[in-house]
Every structure is written in C-alpha cells, then in structure tokens.
C-alpha cells in the first residue's frame, strides 16, 4: 500500500478500471454477467462502463441504506434512492462496482441486499481506490489505486458530465464513516 498521494487523477484511474473490468468480463460467461453499481459513485462508474464497454444490459443500481449496520446508531440515511436490479440475479455473475473501498461494511451490505434478489453464481468487486482501513474480511478483485489514508480523511468522487474527479476531504470529528 502506497502512502497518500497529493492528488488522484480520477480519469486515469477510471481508464485502468475500465480495462480491468473489460478483461474480467472476458473471463466470465457472456450473457450471464452483469455490472452492479453502488450508489452514488459506483453507479456513475457502472453507467459509464456500460456505455464505454458497449454492454448490452443496463447495470444494476444498489442503494444499501436499508442494509447498513449502523441504523441503530444513526438512523435512516436522509436521502435513500431506490435500488434497481432489472435482471434476474439467480445464477448470474455480478461485477460489483464502487468508487472507494474502506471499512468493507458497504460491500457486506451490498452483498446482503443482492442475495435478497436471488442467488448469484459469483460476485466480483472492482473499485477505483482502495484506501485501506478494513474492518471486515473483504477484498477487491481489482483496485485502480491502493493508498493509505488515515481515519478522519475521506475520498469524494464527483462527476462533471462524463468525467470524474476525486477530492480529499477532512471529516469533522466523530462523523460516522461508512465507505
């Protein structure tokens, strides 16, 4: 794991991710493989991958708010978006896309939600940035960058039209973290 760089080139990372996802999908059965993006950053990336890779089926979208493990502590997220998985999940190979991998709790929640849609054949995970700080035994199959970021610092993906940007953000103390 490399130390925190002064900045991250989100577009360059996206290109690496795109090529990795292209290679990954070539190893999975065509017609039975789907992208699933995690709201919001992961969904943006999955949408763009869908266009750039010319995939036939629209990616699934997950908002994991109803599956978070900190509901008892902080209540419901103020802006929940509907999840939309329009394909049958049973026996499909899913490539889960997120912007930042941190504690692993979001990925656990996403997998729990996916299993309420059906029983996938497999789930892979591809992210733009793995920032360390895992609290659960979760690992990405591909991360375009792997950095070390102390707790209290955050990475925020934004998009302007097609292109992505990543900013570093300092969290106010005791803000619950869930990335």
């Amino acid at each position, binding site marked *: 794991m490399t130390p925190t760089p002064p900045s991250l080139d989100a577009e360059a990372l996206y290109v690496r991710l795109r090529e990795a996802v292209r290679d990954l999908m070539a190893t999975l059965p065509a017609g039975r493989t789907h992208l699933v993006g995690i709201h919001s950053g992961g969904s943006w990336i999955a949408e763009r991958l869908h266009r750039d890779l010319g995939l036939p089926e629209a990616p699934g979208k997950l*908002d994991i*708010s*109803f*599956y978070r493990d900190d*509901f008892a502590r*902080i*209540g*419901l997220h*103020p*802006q*929940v*978006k*509907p*999840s*939309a998985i329009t394909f049958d999940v049973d026996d499909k190979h899913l490539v889960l896309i997120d912007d930042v991998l941190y504690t692993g709790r979001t990925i656990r929640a996403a997998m*729990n*939600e996916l*299993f*309420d*849609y*059906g029983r996938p054949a497999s789930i892979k995970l591809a992210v733009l940035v793995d920032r360390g700080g895992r609290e659960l035994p979760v690992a990405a199959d591909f991360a375009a960058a792997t950095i070390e970021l102390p707790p209290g610092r955050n990475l925020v993906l934004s998009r302007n039209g097609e292109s992505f940007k990543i900013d570093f953000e300092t969290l106010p103390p005791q803000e619950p973290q869930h990335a």
Partner: protein
Amino acid sequence: MRNPQLNSNGELTHLLTVEGLPRDILTHILDTAESFVPLADREIKKVPLLRGKSVFNLFFENSTRTRTTFEIAAKRLSADVYNLNISASSASKGESLLDTINNLSAMQADLFVVRHASSGAPHLIARHVAPHVHVINAGDGRHAHPTQGLLDMYTIRHYKKDFSQLTVAIVGDILHSRVARSDIHALTTLGVPEVRAIGPLTLLPSGLEQMGVRVFTNMAEGLKGVDVIIMLRLQNERMRGALLPSAQEYFKHYGLTQEKLALAKPDAIVMHPGPMNRGVEIDSSVADGKQAVILNQVTFGIAVRMAVMSIVAGA
C-alpha cells in the same frame, strides 16, 4: 413548545398528526417510501432495518386494512409484530390506557401503532413512553389519520409528479373524517394551491375556509377542472343521526358517477381510503374505472408505512 412528534434534534420520533409537520419531513417520508416500493417485486420482500425490534399494533377500534398494512410493513422491515385487539381484551376488563401501555412496555415494545376512538389517545401514549419507544397514530377519533394522509400524498405525487399546480377535491363526510383533516393539512403543507371540500352542509365542519379550503355544496361546481378527487366513506350511522335523509338521496347529490367525473380534468385520478360503499358515495363503474387508483393506494400504503416506521425508529 416543541412539537411533541420531534426529538431535540428536530427528527421525527412519533407520527401523531400531519398538522404542524414541516414540508421537508413530509417530503423525506415520501422519498423514503419511493425506495421501499420496488421491494414488492423482489424475491425476498424484506429488509433488515428493524430486525430485533418489537412492533405492537394496538387497535382499540377495528380496522382490517390499516392493521394488515401496518403488519405487512413491519414484517417487511424484519420487525417482530404483535397484534392486539384491545377492544376485546383488557380495556373491556377496565384496565386504563396507560396501564395497558406500561404492561406492553414491560414486554420491551419498541414501537406502538395505535388506533383509538378517542382523539388524542396516541398523543397521550407518546407523552408517556420512554424516549426510545415510538408511537404511530393509525387513526384517532375524528382527529387524524396521518399515514393515510401521507399515502394519499404519495399516490398524488406518483400520478401528478408535482403538487404546485394541482386542484384537489375532497368529497363527502368531511365533518367526521380524520382522513380529510390529515389530507387537508398535508396538501396545504406540500403546496397544493387549491383544496376543495365538497359535501352537504350538515357534513362540512366550520373553519374550513380558515384552513384555506374552498367549500362547495354543489358537487358539479366543485368538481370542475380538478386533478384529483378524494372520495370519503359515508358512515351508515350518519343516516340514523338525522344528518342525511337516505343513502339514495346522498348518492344522487354526492355520489361520484361517470357523469360527474367527466366534469373533472380528463386525466383526473379518483381516490378512496376504503372501505367503499358502492352505490352510496361512489358508483361501481367509477370505482372499477380506469381513473380509479384506489387499489394502488393500498399498495403504496405499505411502502409509506415502512418509511414512517423506519424513520421514527431511527430517530
């Protein structure tokens, strides 16, 4: 004085009435409900939000539909649900309301869903329970039925998208209707520019104009150009109380027929909180017609109740 429904952070901790709730809280409930709607199409229609929580449905007054939709909503949130038909148990043995609540609280209740014939009963319970316990009003006397009001708003928003250009007519026994009261407060808060109340003078409460409502005793006039028609159930006991001559007479003047519906906008929707009296307040051809969204209201009601429960339980 602080709104008794909100905690010190301004979050909704009980839902007792729509009156006095700010627009952003109503919108948050509707937005959250929208995310629960797609669950109905899934293989597993449950989410784990209220796992381990105990929801007590306390129905001091009978209601099959409301109780069932609350039960389904709580179960889809993974809560454990206990249905208590109090009218047939302790209350008839003389136990006081708060003693009943104390006993159920001693059984680790987390959320009470309360229907009561007395206006204000859910308020009383909300003031009495421990801070981590939440109360949802499922209809109290003539006062309020906030989840019905909210599911009506959800239905209107679903079909009409935007509240800011709408004319909404509420037709029938407004005087005795807690649904009408909750609808009027919700419509006004959400920015509906014109709310109309249509009914015979004997069934219209005073003070509607002060709530910003236009009052009509002539149904044909009142329905002209409306986007949404909310029909209310005519309770049979009103006929005995000399407020109305007969069901036939009522239907003639205030029953929604195809002819009267034609006075509203062509894309107007017809709503009804149920249970319907066909041939009294609504003609069967309208109730089953393509403009009726009455059964969709029932379906949306589950998602709206899930939203309310998960928001108050998380406060």
